[in-house]
């Protein structure tokens, strides 16, 4: 099946702390700017795999914004949906790794160009050929952004398309009041859910095992739920032809982790785009795990996206 994917949300530059556990309140070195943003990294990985993808966002008319647009365009992302604005600056983030797979961030999204992502920003003419929308939970940072995503979601669904959703929960999102309601709303439309294993419990109505929690989420009509375990692989839950929930496991790959930021989004992009183009669940998971591993071996949020050939070479 031919796939054309769209995604929308935050696009920013990231400055990464040079040292592990570097404090924000002390003068230190940072490396950057790197183009970043969960949906942007997702789009970049889809494009690197060779699939058409369009990304909608807003940046400032400044060197940071130009850098982000040029990088995405160079890697094959359709950037016609990214607008540049005079009166606001491109969003920025500073990050530091505080544990092997945990980062702390200080970012400026709401008072930046990203605040201009809105209902009117979603151009249906640009989305008309898309048959899939991916949503990152981190893109639900304001009512306007939720409104924009809602428009895109309804448009894609009304044209017979599918939706994938990664809640992408991180501790900085606890300030956003709309999060729980917006998760609940989006799950009503979701066909493929990708969730980090540490976040599964967030969706539990009662205590239970991973399988029990996932089963209760699947009752909303979600067809695939992938629980990502980082370098330890992933489980994919899906209904079989007897309406029972099956779990398919695919192992991860041992790699020296240099920078895992962005790796989750590479996993999402690889799994979603390959599944939609006809790969089996097992194949899609295997490639997605490889994509995660390759991304973790590079410094920088978007620097580890891989082509299909690079993934195949890694797997061989």
């Amino acid at each position, binding site marked *: 099946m031919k796939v054309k994917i769209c995604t929308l949300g935050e696009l920013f530059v990231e400055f990464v702390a040079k040292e592990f556990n570097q404090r924000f309140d002390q003068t230190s070195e940072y490396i950057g700017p790197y183009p970043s943003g969960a949906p942007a990294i997702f789009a970049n990985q889809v494009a690197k795999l060779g699939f058409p993808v369009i990304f909608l966002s807003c940046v400032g008319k400044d060197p940071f914004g130009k850098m982000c647009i040029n990088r995405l365009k160079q890697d094959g992302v359709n950037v016609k949906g990214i607008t540049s*604005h*005079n009166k606001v600056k491109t969003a920025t983030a500073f990050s530091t790794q505080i544990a092997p797979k945990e980062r702390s961030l200080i970012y400026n999204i709401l008072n930046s160009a990203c605040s201009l992502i809105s*209902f*009117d920003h979603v151009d249906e003419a640009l989305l008309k050929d898309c048959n899939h929308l991916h949503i990152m939970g981190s893109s639900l940072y*304001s009512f306007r952004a939720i*409104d924009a995503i809602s428009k895109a979601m309804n448009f894609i669904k009304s044209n017979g398309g599918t939706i994938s959703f990664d809640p992408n929960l991180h501790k900085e999102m606890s300030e956003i009041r709309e999060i*729980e309601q917006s998760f*609940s709303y989006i799950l009503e439309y979701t066909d493929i859910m990708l969730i980090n294993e540490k976040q599964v419990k967030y969706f539990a*109505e009662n205590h239970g095992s991973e399988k029990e929690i996932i089963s209760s989420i699947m009752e909303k009509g979600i067809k695939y739920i992938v629980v990502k375990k980082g370098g330890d692989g992933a489980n994919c839950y899906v209904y079989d032809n007897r309406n029972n929930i099956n779990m398919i496991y695919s192992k991860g790959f041992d790699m020296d982790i240099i920078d895992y930021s962005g790796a989750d989004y590479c996993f999402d992009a690889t799994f979603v785009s390959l599944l939609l183009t006809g790969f089996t669940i097992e194949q899609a998971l295997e490639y997605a795990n490889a994509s995660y591993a390759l991304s973790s071996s590079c410094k920088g949020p978007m620097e580890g996206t891989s082509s299909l050939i690079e993934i195949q070479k890694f797997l061989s």
Partner: protein
Amino acid sequence: MAKVSSALLKRRLEIAEIVRKCGEIKVDELSDILQVSHVTIRQDLTYLEHQGYLKRFFGKAIYISPEDFINNSTSVYPSRLASYFNVDNNDIKLVTTCLNYINNGDTIFLSHGSLIRKLIPFLHNKKYLTVILNDLNNAQLVKEFSDAEVILIGGVLDKSNVLKHSNLSSSIINQFSFSNFIFEFSAINANDYLVIQDIEHQEIYQQILKNADHSIGILPPQMKINENNTIGKLKNTDVIVLSRSVVNEYHQQLLNSNFKQVTTDKYCVTYHNVLEV
């Protein structure tokens, strides 16, 4: 996460859609449409106002676009209301910079549009001008404010009273020697081409830019542009006047194209092409 209903969010999305489509709407009307109490509507509107989505005035809700919100973050009124009370002096400062380059006896072509229009009253100090335009409204204003000879060229009149380019206008333009071509543009693209807003004027401005002795481009603040309507290379322009808000974006590009910053004030920055001037 306990089971959380998305009903509240959905109702607010629905209110947002109604306010956006109507522009403004009363609390009573929203309450009737959505079949919820006034109290509930007011709570929803308070939330949406806090999100910067709308403003509440005397029982009504008025939509604020994201651009209005950014432009008027310290203002009580959305810009389309504020425009009734404010005059934008920045535009006037942008265009009056051009007066330094207009001499008595010049033949000048003024591009269409409301920005160039603001220059016209200041032409009364210049003598023996020939002013050529493709904008009927601006032509009438030149007649009011100066004793210049006014020549209107073009073809079919569009709804803004601007004459669209035709083959006839090309041959007429060739008969003139332009001392100055003063035009408004929207952007400088990554390939150093000047971009204008309207494709209808692309050909005529390309022609004049090539032929004019001296050209002055004015770039006001812009929100959205179509990068395909180019009229010529930046290096073929003599003077560029940038509004303050776009200087950061284009300063380096101008320096790379042999432009030098010559004057600066709080409204605009003027650059000269050191190879042309």
